[in-house]
């Protein structure tokens, strides 16, 4: 009886009695299923309508950005899909700059150097492995190799841009120092895990066969980014208005993201782990202060910045200062996350010989990856889309605008009808990096939000 197949859920095999009983499915249950289906249907319909309503403005913006400002004039036209799709608006954004040729040259150079650096690192690393050299020596050699690569790059970049050797020498030397430092750091990371030692263990199972290759690739990518940076030093790009605004926004957002993340995480860690007099008071005060909108301080801030010469032409550093100023107040979510990491990990690491800072860096940071990413994203996004602060700090000074302020000025002129489609194109390009960031990091983002919230 027992090995009889059980074809459906509705039939229950009663092993003791040896009978197969058919259990009638109650009618209520069936109708419940139907009810569920209807409810789901309604929910999905509502959600679909909502998402369409939500998406319409974006679709509209993207479509408008492809309507040529030369051929189909006008701000508000009575049709949605442009008659001819053109890239005129986008071209306008880059007009008067050598952006594409600059990028092309830079990439070509950087790629070549990265390739050389990769090969060098790889072979050097291998031969050094074989030679059983000490860690310090290996580190230095790798660093030096990369520095040589950089010097070659700087001189070559200068040659491409037609500069004299004298002009090339300064950035080349500067880069030499930079790259030696970077090389040492990367090489240390590269050699840290001691794969060789691990592999000699009897039970070692390689977790990832391509780990070595991955490390080399990462290294190459880092070098590539640095090479681009050097290119900027060697031959600054001639920028159009839009590119300058974009650059301003990017600079502000990047600096803010880094500084704010460091401050927020340190403050949250301190409030989560250290017990000091006035801790509760600080937390409560900050929470209450946070209830006041930041705009209340606008006029005061403007005068303070003005005293320091950080308005108009100095708008970029001024804005970075403003955005970073109160960042410690955003400790709440990450503190909640840190609270969920067992305290005994800290204690154990401290007994193992770590200082507070080493505990933070080596134990807490790797475990708090979601909240780090969440903090970086938040810190990047706020200045990226800010209009209010940016508009009054850079007031009237084109060079200091960020994208939001600049684009607003286009549609605030007498010719606003004609600038509308260009405004749309500018808007689309602004959305690109933030969208990419979100898509890449959304997994962590959700973990960060919920992880911080659960035991907040």
């Amino acid at each position, binding site marked *: 009886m027992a090995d009889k197949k059980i074809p459906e859920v509705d039939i229950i095999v009663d092993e003791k009695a040896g009978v197969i009983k058919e259990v009638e499915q109650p009618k209520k249950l069936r109708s419940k299923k139907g009810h569920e289906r209807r409810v789901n249907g309604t929910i999905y319909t509502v959600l679909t309508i909502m998402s369409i309503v939500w998406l319409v403005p974006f679709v509209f913006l993207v479509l408008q950005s492809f309507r040529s400002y030369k051929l189909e004039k006008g701000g508000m036209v009575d049709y949605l899909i442009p008659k001819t799709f053109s890239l005129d608006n986008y071209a306008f954004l880059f007009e008067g700059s050598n952006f594409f040729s600059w990028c092309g040259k830079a990439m070509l150079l950087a790629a070549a150097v990265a390739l050389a650096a990769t090969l060098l690192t790889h072979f050097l690393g291998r031969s050094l492995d074989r030679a059983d050299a000490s860690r310090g020596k290996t580190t230095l050699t790798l660093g030096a190799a990369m520095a040589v690569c950089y010097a070659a790059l700087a001189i070559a970049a200068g040659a491409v841009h037609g500069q004299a050797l004298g002009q090339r020498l300064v950035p080349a030397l500067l880069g030499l120092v930079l790259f030696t430092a970077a090389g040492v750091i990367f090489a240390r990371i590269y050699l840290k895990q*001691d794969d060789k030692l*691990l592999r000699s*263990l009897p*039970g070692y*199972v390689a977790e990832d066969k391509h780990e070595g290759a991955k490390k080399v690739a990462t290294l190459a990518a880092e070098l590539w980014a640095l090479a681009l940076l050097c290119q900027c030093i060697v031959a600054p790009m001639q920028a159009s208005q839009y590119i300058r605004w974009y650059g301003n926004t990017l600079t502000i957002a990047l600096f803010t993201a880094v500084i704010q993340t460091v401050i927020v995480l340190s403050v949250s860690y301190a409030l989560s782990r250290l017990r000091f007099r006035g801790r509760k008071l600080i937390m409560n005060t900050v929470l209450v202060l946070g209830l006041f909108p930041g705009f209340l301080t606008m006029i005061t801030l403007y005068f303070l910045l003005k005293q320091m010469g950080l308005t108009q032409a100095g708008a970029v550093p001024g804005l970075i200062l403003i955005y970073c100023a109160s960042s410690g107040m955003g400790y709440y979510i990450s503190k909640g996350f840190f609270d969920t990491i067992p305290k005994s990990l800290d204690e*154990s690491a401290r*007994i*193992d*010989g770590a200082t507070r800072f*080493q505990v933070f860096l080596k134990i807490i940071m790797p475990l708090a990856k979601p909240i780090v990413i969440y903090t970086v994203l938040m810190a990047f996004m706020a200045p990226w889309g800010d209009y209010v602060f940016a508009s009054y700090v850079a007031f009237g000074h084109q060079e200091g605008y960020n994208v939001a302020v600049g684009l607003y000025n286009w549609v605030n002129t007498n010719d606003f009808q004609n600038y509308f489609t260009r405004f749309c194109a500018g808007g689309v390009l602004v959305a690109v990096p933030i969208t990419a960031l979100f898509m890449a990091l959304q997994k962590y983002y959700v973990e960060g939000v919920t992880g911080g919230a659960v035991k907040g």
Partner: protein
Amino acid sequence: MASLKLEHVKKVYDKNVVAVHDFNLEIKDKEFIVFVGPSGCGKSTTLRMIAGLEDISEGTLTIGNRVVNDVEPKDRDIAMVFQNYALYPHITVYENMAFSLRLRKMDNEEVHRRVCEAAEILGITQYLARKPKALSGGQRQRVAIGRAIVREPQVFLMDEPLSNLDAKLRNQMRAEIILLRKRIDTTFIYVTHDQTEAMTLGDRIVIMKDGYIQQVGTPQEVFETPKNLFVAGFIGSPQMNFLKAKLVKNSDRYAAELYGIRVELDEKRSAKLRAKNAQPGQVILGVRPEHAQLRFDGAANAIEGTLRVNEMMGSELHLHVDLNDDTRVILRIPTLDLTEEQRAGLTYGSKLWFTFPEKVTHLFDPETEESLLF
């Protein structure tokens, strides 16, 4: 390897909660000391003060010849095993164990040698490349111990290391800790709430309650001559039976009268009572469950009781017996001592009688709860 000295150590938390009162203890080099007591007795706090994770409110702590009150945990040369293992989840077992050595900037080869050696001792060599989450509880605990032994510390602290393991594994690990101790001969301080662990592991046991040390002594000492009611009740399982009795003096010999029987105390006990100048009157008489002898026939000079619960433990029976004034006592009777019929007769409500030899009795003052025989 170092001796430790705690002098008048006191821990006061905010709001004037005193967790540890005037703790005095000298721990010899290479000694295995166990702090035992119910939860909230201050044993973990004391350990954490030794580790440097809690500030010492008053008193001095000396490790070796150095006063370490204000020394950071990392500079005290101690290692600690936590109850919840506290392994670093993001790195492999190998790196977990190597963590402290790397912080000390130790040579790679030396790190490798030490980690492998520790892994060998603990039998976790095949797990070195795994992350902690891929290990079972027992394996994790081994890694935690391994992380401590690679350090070769002066003092080895363990904070209830076995309480997260299931009963079987706990017994196994207990035996392994005894073996481990033989191999790495150093000073151990072990905190537990389990008196069995304390008895089996410790060279000396420190029994604590409400922040006070109740008694310090070898397992033998605290078992045979408990200093007060609390120690007597805490050490030994099931716990000692306490019976109301009357002390009577007959020339220079003492005797105790309880439940209609009279227990003549031997010369050794009488001498101690005389030395304390004990006056006849109310006392508490303590008898361990295993010292009771069962009588079925209502023999003279035996205490009568009614059986309430009969727990069959395999090699022995635990009989919960109510005396005529509703005092509950527990008797531990070896199963082999009873015949089939006698065992069958031990059912709910059946009458039985028991006695005990006078040389195993303990006497306590009901007022101060101190032992009269200490």
